[in-house]
């Protein structure tokens, strides 16, 4: 069964086409990465999947219209810009999402390694800590699909490593389907089951070893991009 089914999706802002007639599927339980240069329509794709913008074509999430599937989707945005002097604790921020039972809340916090941060103010967190809090908010409603929009932007190397460990754990141990937008081609080459390459059009779609060819990388990023090959084993 597919978690996401996209058919002939076109999105335009005014007269500028951002996504042009793209079609793809994301299998349930997979970790799929979306790559492409800036302005290639990656974030627009996530906004369409969340029913945040008007679009042409068909999107089905777990066989439902996106607006009806929101309860099954967790979302981590690319930017989280807020007044950092506003005193909001991590626990309070998570309580804004939904009144969940404390046992489940504690479990989510342990999973993403933020259980020691509950009483810290979100304005005082490091980039990596804040990103994990944002994942926790996305997990609070126990989603079957997690949409992550460039989640490692602004995080240091150690923070990014912890972050990707959490993502892999959620996917492999809990079977959460993950759609991850990233610029880190070498990282997604290592962890993803499937890669979708966008540059307004769909350039390629498939397992990393087949999708990430030199020709595709050249089409996306120009001549000077190198991929480190991994002995990738798709998740069962």
């Amino acid at each position: 069964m597919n978690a996401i089914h996209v058919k002939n999706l076109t999105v335009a802002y005014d007269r500028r086409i951002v996504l042009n007639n793209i079609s793809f599927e994301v299998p349930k339980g997979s970790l799929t990465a979306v790559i492409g240069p800036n302005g290639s329509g990656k974030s627009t794709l996530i906004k369409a999947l969340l029913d945040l913008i008007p679009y042409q074509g068909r999107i089905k999430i777990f066989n439902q219209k996106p607006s009806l599937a929101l309860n099954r989707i967790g979302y981590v945005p690319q930017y989280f810009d807020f007044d950092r002097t506003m005193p909001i604790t991590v626990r309070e921020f998570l309580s804004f999402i939904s009144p969940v039972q404390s046992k489940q809340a504690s479990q989510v916090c342990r999973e993403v390694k933020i259980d020691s941060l509950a009483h810290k103010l979100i304005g005082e967190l490091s980039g990596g800590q804040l990103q994990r809090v944002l994942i926790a908010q996305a997990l609070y409603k126990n989603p079957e699909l997690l949409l992550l929009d460039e989640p490692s932007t602004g995080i240091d190397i150690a923070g990014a490593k912890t972050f990707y460990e959490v993502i892999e754990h959620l996917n492999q141990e809990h079977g959460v389907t993950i759609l991850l937008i990233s610029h880190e081609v070498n990282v997604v080459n290592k962890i993803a089951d499937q890669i979708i390459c966008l540059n307004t059009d769909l350039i390629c779609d498939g397992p990393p070893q087949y999708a990430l060819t030199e020709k595709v990388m050249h089409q996306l990023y120009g001549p000077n991009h190198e991929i480190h090959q991994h002995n990738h084993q798709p998740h069962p």
Partner: protein
Amino acid sequence: MFEYLALPFMQRAIIAGLILGALLSLLGIFVVLKRMAFFSDGIAHASLAGVALGVLTNANPLFVALGASSIFAILISWLERKTKIASDAIIGLIFTAGMATGVVLLSLKKGYQPELVSFLFGNILSLQWSELYIMAGLGLLIIIYLILRHKQLALMILNPDIAHANNIKVALHQTILYVIIALSVVLGMKMLGVVLVSALLIIPVSTAKIFSQSFHQLMAYSVIISELSIVLGLVLSIILNLPTGAVIVLTGIGIFSLTMAGHRLKLQFFHRQTG
């Protein structure tokens, strides 16, 4: 001093002050969080059109201004979502259009207009029972809404996309927030006037932010600081025979300055202790 409390106008002023203090300080948290102080100022000025219409038609200017400001708020929210005009430019357009309409309407009425002076500088001591009933009813309704919905509102302001993904109707809640800010600003104008009404939205929350360690503390301390400013300001204005609205604002500024100074001293002491 206590004989003043037996006077009906003083009782009305204290009741209205306490309700408005809680209302504006709670609402101020969302105004500051969303960085929309200009919106409240713009709405306050634009509501001159409603005040003028009330004066011209011999209706209660406060009630007409409440209706006019709600329409302006819905219009701003709609234009923000449906056009590419920057938010501050939209507010500027509505602000000046409302003011200009008010000036034109007022020019049609001959003679001295006390409502205009009251609109500009506020006069809570002139509050009528009918106005107090509306103020109390509407004010308490909005306070209850804010207490029940503060989590959804805070999330919507922090990140509308996350709020949408959590099934919060962002467009609807944003419009409701704009309308209740507009209504509250007009209610507050009776006490502080158009020039000073934003003060009670900004000062209590700015003071409480200095020492609050959580959002719930911020809500509680903002209300306490606001009520303290209003009661102290009312008493001081009577003792010193000075304009009530201005004294309330200066009292709030005084509490803010003392809190800020105390916080800096505490930090210096802490740094000395830790070397």
